[in-house]
């Protein structure tokens, strides 16, 4: 089970909870598993092609998943994923 931390604008899809534990084998499974557990969140995170929106960053243990060579890395129990949309509040 991996721990996924959801930023504030995403928590409405997770009963206003900041995190969720999901059984993921790889990062590639994140969005389908998240959408299954938190219906509607996929539309907030992904564009019409299914790619993660450019206004959203997903970090696996502090590394941006866009910078990873592959999304097929096997995840372990201790892995943490943060999903952080852009913000501009002041």
């Amino acid at each position, binding site marked *: 089970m991996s721990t996924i*931390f959801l930023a*504030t*604008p995403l928590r409405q899809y997770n009963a206003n909870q*900041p995190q969720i534990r999901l059984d993921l084998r790889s990062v590639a499974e994140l969005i389908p598993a998240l959408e299954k557990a938190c219906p509607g969140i996929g539309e907030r995170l992904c564009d019409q092609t299914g790619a993660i929106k450019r206004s959203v960053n997903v970090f696996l243990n502090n590394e941006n998943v866009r910078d990873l060579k592959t999304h097929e890395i096997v995840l372990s129990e201790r892995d943490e994923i*943060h999903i952080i949309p852009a913000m501009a*509040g002041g």
Partner: protein
Amino acid sequence: MDVIPNKSELTEFDLQRYERQIRLQGFGKEAQRRLKSSSVLVSRVGGVGGTAAMNLVRAGVGKLVLAHPGCIEPEYLNRCQLLFPADLGRSFVDVWAERLKSINPDVEIVTVRDSVNESNVAGLVAQADLIVDGAPLFEERYLMNREAVAQRKPLCMGAVFGLEGYVTAIVPGETPCLACIYPEKPEYWTNHKVFPVIGPAPVIVAATAAMEAIKLLTGFGTPLKNVLWFFDLETNDSRRFRVKRKSGCPVCGGLPDHQHKGG
């Protein structure tokens, strides 16, 4: 003949006022002189920008350029450290200039009763050594980011949403710019009142952004280069996310890579 003091010369009162920070290991009088001769552009003096400006003036920055349109409304009073109910209806920048001058009468303040826009951004950035961006609209932030990169000026970017916030130090050619990190804004960010917020979150962002500005202006400490520092006061989670330049970035992709190795 009167002797005109060097602008960065520290007076006896400066030495007393800044004694505690001059004592910081690696700071000293030289860093204090650099602050005194520095200028910072602050885009919007709301919860983030205003508090950052306050910290910069307290630390001894010599000149601030403040850009913010309009007048003070009640909703700002939950997070703007030096604004009070009696200020309602007064110009943002006028009140901030007054308050900042009361902290340090020697600080030079330039006020602009407008937000950053296409027609003023180049002139505003040209007046400053560094930018602190606390604007509540992505359009203003992307514009400022573009101009900072064009003029090779460092930019301390801080933002909040609710109890969360993040800060990074953008140094053109050394770090990713805003367009590298977040190339697009969220579709729901349609106006400056989109985000909920409570006072402590922007205070943390502002204090961190101000410290990043002080570091970049003086060479003191380790700035948040290539790091997006994130916190959530609801869960007390905080992270240092690694962020990288994007070679195809339409804003900074053409700059040569000046990243220092082993820093």
